[in-house]
């Protein structure tokens, strides 16, 4: 017999009456469900989670102090290199000053995570505020904000970062938290413009929608329309863009540290490690390869998550 007849009468009756018996599912719940089924994105999430755990518990996990020098054991090779210079005390080897590379890699993830998330939060706040105001009010406000945005947008990103970092690095502002604060601000200044434009575009199209007019017709105030009606509708592309902003911030930090104007040594970061490893590159490539690999994996993970989020939040969007 069919399953329908096997169902208890009350349940069947409910189904017939079209009473909702299935589980509630919100838009975000749907998106999460789609994200969960995306293998690459889940790989990314796991990798990021590992990196986050390493960053948070670095002092407990790292076998050595990352800036402690063991000059007798300098330039050890990692255990898998089959080299005569590998040293079991330093599983991933040591650099030219005898600092444990594994410990330095673990500690570096702290900087990368912080540099990934803090400037992104700043970008989020500034970009959304500017984009919302600009798109919603239009007219003169829009013109003013967007021309300002265009000016910053027109400037080459890396050049801008280099100018800020190179000039302000040795001022008191550049010394806050080993240069981290300056780095946050510099990355945020360069990157908020893209988000502001994205949000403005979203708001421009959304504010003509009928449900916004319906909200107006109910007497909702403009501020509340922006916060409650426009913002949640514009959120999906914003989240995607944030997911891509994080790796680009991490890369910016690595780039700046690599050319020597980022985070100040001895604070270990992957960029700093590559920079220092470069000096001994002809002797052994590992001090460069290992941190570079870490950057690649983290970047790739965030990109996977970003792609996954984009597919999950807007299945129709094709890029």
């Amino acid at each position, binding site marked *: 017999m069919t399953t329908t007849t096997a169902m208890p009468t009350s349940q069947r009756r409910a189904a017939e009456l079209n009473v909702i018996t299935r589980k509630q599912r919100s838009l975000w719940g749907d998106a999460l469900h789609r994200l969960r089924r995306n293998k690459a994105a889940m790989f990314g999430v796991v990798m990021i989670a590992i990196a986050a755990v390493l960053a948070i518990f670095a002092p407990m996990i790292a076998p050595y102090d990352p800036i402690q020098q063991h000059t007798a054991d300098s330039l050890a090779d990692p255990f898998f290199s089959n080299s005569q210079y590998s040293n079991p005390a330093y599983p991933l080897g040591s650099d030219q000053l005898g600092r444990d590379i594994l410990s330095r890699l673990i500690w570096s993830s702290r900087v990368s995570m912080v540099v990934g998330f803090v400037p992104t939060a700043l970008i989020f706040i500034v970009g959304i505020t500017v984009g919302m105001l600009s798109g919603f009010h239009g007219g003169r406000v829009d013109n003013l904000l967007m021309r300002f945005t265009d000016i910053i947008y027109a400037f080459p990103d890396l050049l801008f970062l280099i100018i800020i970092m190179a000039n302000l690095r040795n001022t008191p502002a550049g010394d806050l938290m080993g240069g981290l604060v300056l780095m946050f601000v510099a990355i945020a200044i360069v990157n908020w413009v893209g988000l502001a434009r994205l949000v403005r575009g979203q708001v421009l199209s959304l504010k003509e929608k009928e449900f916004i007019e319906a909200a107006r*017709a*109910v007497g909702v105030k403009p501020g509340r329309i922006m916060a409650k009606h426009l913002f949640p509708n514009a959120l999906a592309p914003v989240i995607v863009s944030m997911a891509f902003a994080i790796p680009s911030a991490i890369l910016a930090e690595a780039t700046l540290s690599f050319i020597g104007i980022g985070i100040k040594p001895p604070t270990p970061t992957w960029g700093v490690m590559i920079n220092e490893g470069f000096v001994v590159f002809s002797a052994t490539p590992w001090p460069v390869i290992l941190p570079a690999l870490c950057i690649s994996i983290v970047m790739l993970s965030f990109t996977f998550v970003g792609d996954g989020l984009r597919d999950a939040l807007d299945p129709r969007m094709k890029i």
Partner: protein
Amino acid sequence: MALLEVNDLHTQFFTRDGTVKAVDGVTFEIAAGETLGLVGESGCGKSVTALSLMRLIPMPPGKIVKGSVVFDGQDVTKMDDDDVRQIRGNNIAMIFQDPMTSLNPVLTISRQISEALELHLKMDRGESRKRTIELLELVGIPSAAKRLDDYPHQFSGGMRQRVMIAMALSCNPKLILADEPTTALDVTIQAQILDLLKNLAREFRTAFILITHDLGVVAGMTQRIHVMYGGKIVEKADTGELFANPKMPYTWGLLRSIPRLDERRKGKLLPIEGLPPDLIAPPPGCRFEPRCQYRHEICREKPPELLPIPNAKPDHEARCWGTQAGGWLVDIDWRRDIGDTKQLEEIKQEVATLPPEAIRAATADVPPPPAAQR
């Protein structure tokens, strides 16, 4: 005293191509508890009139340039923004045309309905939830308490329109503007929604302005009907009178173009020939003159006024030279006399020679987009 008095309302849109006189001197009033139909084809200014009443015209490019909208003794056009917001949703509510796009897709039904309750009646979450359930039951949504936290995409079109109606009713408004509330729905759902509106209007003694292009919709719903054409009201009458004894050739055209069950003839449906007027540069005389097969010379020269008609009920008015005292249309039987066929041919000819862009522009449903302003 009337609940709402609209006096010589002019709403215009200032676009790159010129000033669109979307509403051009509209005057009407509606008493508490009354239902009024506003009928006319696309682009005749019905919706803009409704939006003007709540000051929802997008500014720029739109502007109410003249006239007053007196609601409950206060002129809406002269209020500051905060006071207008107090009226919106609270005293005047609106039901929009397309329920598929008029609900915010990321908010639950309960959040959207309770928004007005919390805003105007200062209810807290719990109270507004309770009231929302009542409202949803009132508009006939089954197992309302369970569907409260559903999102709009989980509702069908007819159900969404019920939600929109619940939203409009939430604060017990004195006046509800229903802008083509059934256009986006299929016929059986249309009938349900119209029934619902009719019952609610009776039950709550809410005044209704029903805006539609479908004379069939207003027939059973309203007490009075105003026919609009080219931004002006061209005929006012109570509903029975308008269907029994229409006077304005445009109204005849509308009536001829809808199928009737009780039609005796096997005659064809007759469309109104020609195109609606360009509201940037409307015809100098009667707005309908270019499409009217009953036209005389005077129609082209001078715009007629909205005046009572000699052999009709006293509150029956039309904006037509032919129906004024001594006019050539006063005693005509509109069902038999379809006017001057030669002029009809002329009108057809005129349209046939128009470039396709002009036709597309004239039949476009929407007013020029705001983007055209710069």
